[in-house]
């Protein structure tokens, strides 16, 4: 209901376009982030899952969920603030970040595996 009121104001250049949080949304965001932080720490410290790769994937999942929680409850992201331009900037940035991260890791991983270490090369002579 809050976003509707804001988008109505946005039409005639009201300076106060950004969404505000309320006490309940801040507290909900805080409780969610405490839980989403505590579980990955507990998983790694106790080694509960046994398998390291599974643990790594699970804590990555928790990190992504927690980032979304922070975006919504603390940074008040939504599709309507600033006529959707904040969301457009965010989507553009996420695309850039994904390209930079996956590209670097992919290329550099292949570089390491395909480059023959010096001692192996001397052994081939």
């Amino acid at each position, binding site marked *: 209901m809050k976003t509707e009121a804001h988008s109505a104001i946005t039409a005639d250049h009201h300076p106060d376009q950004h969404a505000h949080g309320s006490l309940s949304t801040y507290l909900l965001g805080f409780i969610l982030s405490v839980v989403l932080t505590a579980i990955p720490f507990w998983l790694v410290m106790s080694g509960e899952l046994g398998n390291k790769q599974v643990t790594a994937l699970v804590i990555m999942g928790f990190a992504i969920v927690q980032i979304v929680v922070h975006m919504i409850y603390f940074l008040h992201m939504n599709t309507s603030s600033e006529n959707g331009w904040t969301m457009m900037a965010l989507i553009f940035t996420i695309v850039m*970040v994904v390209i930079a991260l996956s590209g670097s890791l992919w290329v550099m991983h292949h570089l390491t595996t395909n480059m023959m270490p010096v001692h192996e090369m001397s052994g081939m002579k």
Partner: protein
Amino acid sequence: MTISVKPQQIGEPLFYLADEHPHPEGWSTSLGFWIYLMSDCLIFAILFATYGVLGANYAAGPAPKDLFDLKLVAINTSMLLMSSITYGFAMLTMQQNRIAQTQMWLTITGLFGLAFIGIELTEFAHMIHEGATPQRSAFLSSFFTLVGTHGLHVSFGLVWLVTLMVQVWRFGLIEANQRRLMCLSMFWHFLDVVWIGVFTFVYLMGMLR
């Protein structure tokens, strides 16, 4: 050579605003600040990528398991998380125009931020004392660059916080100060988002290696 300027014809497309209309002061600040945060996000993405590439090159030096203390990192994470919610309370009291309470919550936020920086510097000092300096290996160079850049951001956030508290103390919660506090709020919560990436990818996944 003469340049003839044709008068605007009816029905011709117009590629600029024909009439300059006034905007209230600061109407575009939050979008502009958001775009700054997104550019900062790209800086951190590159530092994360560098750490991802170099993070396993220990050069026969210490590995994450020998250096990191997860209990300390957990305490540090809770400091930053607490400062996020107390800044939220500062924004809520600001909207109700309660100056004293806003200042109180800002002070508490600042103290949590200071505790975070203090614990991080203690950790760094301990590592350097053990010989795990940034020069020791590619892993440590990229670690100190990534975590240090985040810590530097928090430190500048603290300077900004104190500056705004002086502003609020001198001029009250005027519209300009409310706008500034909102920008710092975005900056502070953004740093918390970056920290989620740091504790997950650097500390927790480092301990899994």
